[in-house]
């Protein structure tokens, strides 16, 4: 182990330091020359690695194969590094038909670098050898860079054309594809290929670039009778069979491949399309959505599967929906699709049956390898005889050294990889899955590593090294295991036709297995007939566009729309209508079937659906009672929470993507802290990036603070965004929204040491004033009593005696009452002075204080009356 890791380390250093030319400056090297190019692919990879960027040599090899797939990579590029293993997997699958190569197109001064300018590494290019064999035609592959999709692309590139021998063939193509291009080429009259056929062939390859998801089939008619039946007038003419019509390309005979594919692209009309989101800058989805309301079907696009049941349902629906003039051609097509779905289910069952015995053999082998895996990392490969001589860095340890020169990630140290692989147990779920499934592997560890991404992590140490040494042996076509693999349907390997049949059978099983690893087949359950939606699209001004999005690769899009794909039936399938213009979207609740989808569309058309408010995930952190906490709201609980009677809720509307929101938190917290003693007030916030709210709660600027008051919920008010958001401003905003009793308790709770002193002082002053006032009132009372006595002594002599008397009695009553209230006030003031602690050590009895102060407030309003009475008195 130690020796191995040391060597690994040495190799790692080589990556950086090998062939380093150091320019010596006065105090040390200032520049370092770039190291010489290193092999990027494993030494015995099925992919030829031109790591020096030697294009001339590559071209030579390209001319030796009909089809070649070439990766132009840069060694530092992460995607290139990942692509390596995907290429290996793809090469495992197709290396017998296609030549796989990789060329370092970054290394400075290399031929590739000087000749080509690669804008984004890695570039994947399919080279098609011309008929003359002197040049190749390059077609860039822009699809997903995983083995499955590359394999699908290559399988199609191997068979871009389909022979149409009868009308039924055309019908079948029409069912499986959105559109069919038909070319009539007469092979009987000439010995050579018919003129224009090459262009047609190349155009079909070209269309693979544009239509990554087999939307268009390219058929060839060779039989004159069939051609006439399909209304072809002459050879070399091209038709485009669409869902509702058939177009004729008049310039077909004189067009080159580009002209042909341009014509097809221009006229192709599909009721349903797959939208591919490429992973680079793209407006693919955006441009579709801008056109109008769109129904998006999220469904797994498993590259190994040929049928996609949910997508076919969508096609059926979309055909009916767009069938405005009740065309029987369209409705028939939709009906056929229905039967096709039923048939494909049966076919799948059959395939599973056919493959079973064959796969069981492989399962046994897998078990063996797994056992070897588990026992010890060395044994896994150690039992395999190495057919290759050691590599340059050490004979017995050849595995190790190869590992070093081609690490998947330059970052991880060899030790880390060997001693701390991601544990077996962690992947046990996947292993279990793998175990349950059948396998087409032969016994090599390498296969495991390359076919299963989950195993890559684990098996780095033992296989990657080992593979290099023993890879060749397992690829010799007639190893016993391989032979077993071909024993499916036939025992006569010399027979070419039977061998082809066997190969096809093997391919089917392979696909079945690989496909099930990616995602299971999803089938739609159709129990009830669907309502008729024929021509609905033309009867409404909310006409839908139908698109499908691969939920395996773009599940996050669905997630952002608030769809939880994991709970869906069939798996990972969901339908969403998005209406960008109305800024609303709708999710279909029911599990997908033709019935539910049709109902969903009808309900949408009639405006019966509710806008979906996306809800962010809820933070489960409960805060302790002693803490000040800001509750995190979601669109789900927002209304319930804020509309509760008797509770005032202050909500900060923020978004995780605005900088200004990050600096208001402390203001909000401070105010929450200050207001913590106000009863029934809650501070909350909501991230409107992940939560959609009804329109009345939508703000143009963020952060926004809204107050939902205690009782009059309709009187919610928003903090004036032109004011600076400071604790003082926010506080006064809050206070202005409080009712008097809450205002008072707030005033109290914000009162601290300094404030207390002031209160005590004010109370002292008020006491003195009250004493004074009482003296004054008492004097007045005495005066009034005195005058009353006098008045009684001289009855009826003074004019208006009655009036005088009544006024004096009234004043007396008022004065007595004043004195009473003043006494009460005095009493409460004394209480306040007692309750308010003169130093901060004493505990403040809030409720008592509150009570006292409420009295004071009340008596204050009384004192107003006192004032009135005294003026009355003065008038006298």
């Amino acid at each position, binding site marked *: 182990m130690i020796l191995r890791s040391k060597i690994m380390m040495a190799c790692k250093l080589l990556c950086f330091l090998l062939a380093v030319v150091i320019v010596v400056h006065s105090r040390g090297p200032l520049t370092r020359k770039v190291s010489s190019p290193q092999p990027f692919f494993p030494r015995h990879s099925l992919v030829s690695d031109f790591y020096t960027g030697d294009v001339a040599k590559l071209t030579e090899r390209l001319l030796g194969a009909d089809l070649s797939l070439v990766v132009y990579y840069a060694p530092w590029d992460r995607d290139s590094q990942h692509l390596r293993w995907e290429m290996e997997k793809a090469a495992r699958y197709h290396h017998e038909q296609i030549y796989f190569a990789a060329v370092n197109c970054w290394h400075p001064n290399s031929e590739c670098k000087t000749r080509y300018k690669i804008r984004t590494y890695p570039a994947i290019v399919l080279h098609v050898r011309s008929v003359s064999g002197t040049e190749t035609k390059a077609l860039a592959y822009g699809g997903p860079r995983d083995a499955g999709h590359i394999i699908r692309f290559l399988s199609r590139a191997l068979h871009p054309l389909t022979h149409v021998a009868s009308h039924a063939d055309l019908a079948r193509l029409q069912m499986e594809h959105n559109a069919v291009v038909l070319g009539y080429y007469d092979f009987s009259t000439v010995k050579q290929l018919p003129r224009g056929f090459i262009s047609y062939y190349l155009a079909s390859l070209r269309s693979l670039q544009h239509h990554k998801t087999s939307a268009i089939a390219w058929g060839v008619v060779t039989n004159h009778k069939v051609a006439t039946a399909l209304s072809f007038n002459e050879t070399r003419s091209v038709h485009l069979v669409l869902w509702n019509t058939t177009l004729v390309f008049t310039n077909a005979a004189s067009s080159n491949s580009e002209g042909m594919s341009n014509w097809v692209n221009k006229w192709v009309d599909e009721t349903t399309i797959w939208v591919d989101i490429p992973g680079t*800058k793209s407006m693919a989805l955006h441009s579709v959505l801008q056109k109008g309301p769109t129904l998006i079907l999220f469904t797994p696009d498993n590259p190994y599967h040929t049928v996609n049941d949910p997508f076919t349902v969508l096609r059926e629906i979309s055909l009916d929906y767009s069938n405005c003039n009740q065309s029987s051609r369209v409705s028939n097509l939709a009906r056929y699709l229905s039967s096709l779905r039923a048939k494909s289910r049966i076919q799948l069952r059959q395939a599973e049956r056919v493959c079973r015995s064959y796969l069981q053999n492989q399962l046994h082998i897998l078990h063996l390898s797994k056992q070897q895996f588990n026992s010890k990392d060395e044994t896994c490969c150690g039992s395999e005889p190495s057919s290759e001589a050691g590599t340059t860095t050490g004979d017995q340890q050849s595995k190790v050294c190869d590992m070093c020169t081609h690490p998947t990630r330059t970052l991880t140290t060899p030790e880390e990889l060997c001693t701390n692989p991601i544990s077996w147990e962690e992947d046990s779920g996947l292993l279990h899955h793998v175990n349950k499934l059948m396998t087409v592997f032969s016994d090599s560890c390498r296969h495991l590593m390359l076919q299963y991404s989950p195993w890559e992590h684990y098996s780095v140490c033992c296989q990657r090294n080992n593979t290099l040494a023993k890879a060749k042996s397992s690829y010799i076509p007639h190893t016993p295991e391989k032979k077993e693999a071909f024993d499916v349907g036939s025992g006569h390997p010399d027979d070419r036709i039977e061998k082809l049949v066997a190969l096809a059978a093997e391919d089917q099983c392979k696909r079945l297995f690989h496909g099930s690893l990616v995602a299971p087949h999803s089938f739609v359950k159709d129990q009830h007939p669907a309502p008729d939606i024929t021509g609905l699209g033309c009867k409404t001004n909310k006409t839908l566009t139908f698109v499908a999005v691969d939920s395996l690769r773009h599940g996050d899009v669905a997630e952002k729309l608030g769809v939880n794909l994991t709970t869906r039936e069939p798996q990972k399938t969901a339908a969403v209508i998005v209406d960008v213009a109305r800024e609303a979207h709708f999710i279909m609740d029911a599990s997908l079937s033709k019935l539910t989808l049709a109902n969903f569309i009808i309900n949408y058309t009639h405006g019966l659906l509710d806008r979906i408010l996306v809800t962010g995930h809820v933070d489960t952190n409960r805060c302790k009672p002693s803490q000040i906490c800001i509750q995190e709201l979601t669109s789900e609980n927002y209304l319930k929470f804020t509309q509760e009677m008797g509770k005032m809720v202050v909500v900060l509307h923020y978004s995780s993507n605005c900088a200004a929101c990050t600096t208001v938190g402390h203001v909000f917290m401070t105010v929450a802290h200050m207001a913590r003693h106000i009863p029934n007030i809650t501070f909350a916030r909501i991230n409107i990036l992940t939560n959609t709210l009804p329109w009345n709660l939508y703000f*143009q*600027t963020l952060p926004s603070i809204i107050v939902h008051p205690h009782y009059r919920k309709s009187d919610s008010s928003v903090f004036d965004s032109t004011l600076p958001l400071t604790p003082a401003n926010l506080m006064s905003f809050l206070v202005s929204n409080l009712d008097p009793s809450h205002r008072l308790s707030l005033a109290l709770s914000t009162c601290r040491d300094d404030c207390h002193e002031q209160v005590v002082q004010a109370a002292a002053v008020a006491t003195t004033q009250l004493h004074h006032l009482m003296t004054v009132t008492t004097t007045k009372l005495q005066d009034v009593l005195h005058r009353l006595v006098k008045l009684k002594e001289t009855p009826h002599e003074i004019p208006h005696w009655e009036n005088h008397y009544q006024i004096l009695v009234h004043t007396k009553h008022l004065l007595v009452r004043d004195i009473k209230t003043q006494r009460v006030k005095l009493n409460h003031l004394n209480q306040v002075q007692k309750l308010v602690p003169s130093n901060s050590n004493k505990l403040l009895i809030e409720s008592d204080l509150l009570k006292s102060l409420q009295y004071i407030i009340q008596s204050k309003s009384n004192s107003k009356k006192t004032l009135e009475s005294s003026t009355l008195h003065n008038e006298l």
Partner: protein
Amino acid sequence: NKMTFLFVYLQVCFLMSFSTGMTEKERIKLREEVRGMFYHAYEGYIKYAYPYDELRPLSCDGHDTWGSYSLTLIDALDTLGVMENKTEFQRVVELIIEKANFDVNINVSVFETSIRILGGLLSGHLMSKKMGVDVEDGWPCAGPLLRISKDVADKLLPAFDTPTGMPYGTVNLRDGVPEGETPITCTAGVGTYIIEFGTLSRLTGDPVYEEVAMRALHGIWDHRSSINLVGNHIDVLTGRWAAQDSGIGAGIDSYFEYLVKGAALLQKPELMAIFIEARTAIDKYLHHEDWYLWATMTKGYVTMAVFQSLEAYWPGVLALLGDINSAQKIIFNYHQVWKQFGFTPEFYNIPQAEAPVNREGYPLRPELIESLMYLYQATKDDTFLEMGADILTSIQHTAKTECGYATKQPSTCSYFLTRRTGCITWERQDKFIKLALGIVSLKLVDTSIILKLIL
């Protein structure tokens, strides 16, 4: 005129979202890779270069680039905090306090001193408590690091004593502005103080720092052209523009950055108002297909169709503003450049899609990864995490040396370090790593830490 943040419903989720997602395991792995990068560089410095200012990553020795302050330690301080390495943080704080002496007769760049020394000291000061340093009473308004910061800032203040309020580019730490110092300062050199100076003012209670920084910011804006563009270099004595090329990159960059960050940090709507006005003009004259070109400040005629590595901060600023849509579109362009070269070259000719000879270097600039960090934090879209991982992978592949990370110069097929790039190497790699960490959601870093801590 409160800061306005546009929020466009739906488009946020539809425009571009590609990532197939990253598992928690991958995320942690990335984070640990970044941590490894930091310690590789930091330990390289401690082992080979301490107590010099900087490490030279190819020869593996140290040299003084500024004074003898072990400058790298100040730079690395807050990163240690982000790494939550308390013991090392405390050790470095003690070292800095012990060694700090800025009463020396050397000329320094006002700009660099502010962003590096002042910024480093202030964030270190604010992180002290969390890092278990025994803070004195009155923290965060008192403390040794704060006093050192104040001392440094005081030595920079003489540069601001000009008729326009815009500072000189260079100042002598002992004698103020040197005799015969050129009054020509680049726009960024005038307008990149508000975050550090504002923080200092708020912490010490002395308003002078914030005032001079604000005056300098307004100084630039007051001299804008009739179409609201600002030039590249300005005479701080007369207010005449010395270089009239207007863009968002070199020479101007951090002026815009600090407008937004200053507005957010110090809650200054007036700065946001300036930025929004400036951005309107930029979008009108410089913005083409999600690239930003260079144009004359007076008429807005395009002069150069280049993208500069420094410009990569722009999408981050837009993300802070809330304009995620524009930010995403722009960063996809920049990321494409990265994918073409393995770094963002200093100059990138947009129409020809290549880097001019001798302009292909890459001094480990942190701008792109900073923008990615903001975008990731704003959207939590793994696409940006993947882009960040792309950057890490290529840096690790090509720039890593035995004792640190070197700048790149692929035009000559070599990595090089001049005195100048050597001088910024640590800072770049350090900030780079800090930001990379932010992107793998360990913590928000840098200014955001200050943002969070200041009341």
